[in-house]
């Protein structure tokens, strides 16, 4: 195997993405266009942001993220004030070093979601968060005193 030295001119190489990810200028718009050749996982997302699909059916909303190589313990799903936050943090130790990465994504959740019955499932590197819709938001009558 040949080792190819990392050079900034070689931006399209996907394996160098991690370095670029931590690059101090990675957030600049002028540089962000270089990321065009990167895989779809990062499309439409800024640095450190997970790509997400949102679906709905009759009873639920579904939020899906791709998190390959991530274990159940490394995923945190939180609902705080109508804001669903998925964060993934992972540390990998190898013989000659350690690498870590963190991604996070927040999605605002519509009214009428039952916050206490949200479920999350990790399968084949895809995280699916199920947000059940509330039965009915019952109209309230207020008695005039």
């Amino acid at each position, binding site marked *: *195997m040949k080792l190819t030295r990392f050079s900034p001119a070689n931006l399209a190489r996907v394996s160098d993405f991690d370095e670029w990810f931590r690059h101090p200028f990675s957030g600049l718009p002028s540089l962000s266009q270089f990321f065009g050749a990167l895989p779809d996982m990062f499309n439409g997302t800024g640095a450190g942001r997970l790509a997400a699909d949102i679906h*709905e059916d009759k009873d639920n909303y579904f939020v*899906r993220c791709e998190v390959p*190589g*991530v274990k159940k313990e490394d995923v945190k799903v939180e609902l705080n004030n109508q804001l669903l936050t998925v964060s993934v943090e992972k540390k990998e130790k190898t013989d000659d070093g350690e690498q870590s990465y963190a991604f996070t994504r927040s999605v605002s959740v519509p009214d009428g979601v039952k916050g206490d019955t949200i479920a999350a499932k990790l399968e084949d590197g895809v995280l699916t968060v199920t947000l059940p819709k509330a039965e009915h938001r019952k109209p309230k009558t207020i008695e005039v005193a």
Partner: protein
Amino acid sequence: MNTCCTPTDTRRDTRVAENESPAVKPRYFVDGTTEAYEVRVELPGVGKDGVSIDLDENLLTLRAKRKPSAPAEWKPLHRELSDLDYLLRLRLNTQVDEAKMSATLADGVLTLRLPVKEAAKPRRIEVQ
């Protein structure tokens, strides 16, 4: 194992050959020792039976089919993830022992172990 011959522009629906469906190139990492190479390929959304790996001479072709991303009755509200299948082609520059090749898929990551053929391992030659 340094040559990747998947078309580089992975964002567009790249038709590799006339009869091949559009595919994206997955992220992958290669580690190696003198004994074996280990290739880790990120394939989120792929089930165990969706992966096919072929080694033809020195060209390793990996195709992975995604499971249907969402049931038909789900209505998409917002989409960022790709639906395309994965295709990765690597040209090996080391002889690999085909019989001992192994692959495992866990958590959306395929780990491919490619043991180096005895004949290709480094040897020490004694001076007579």
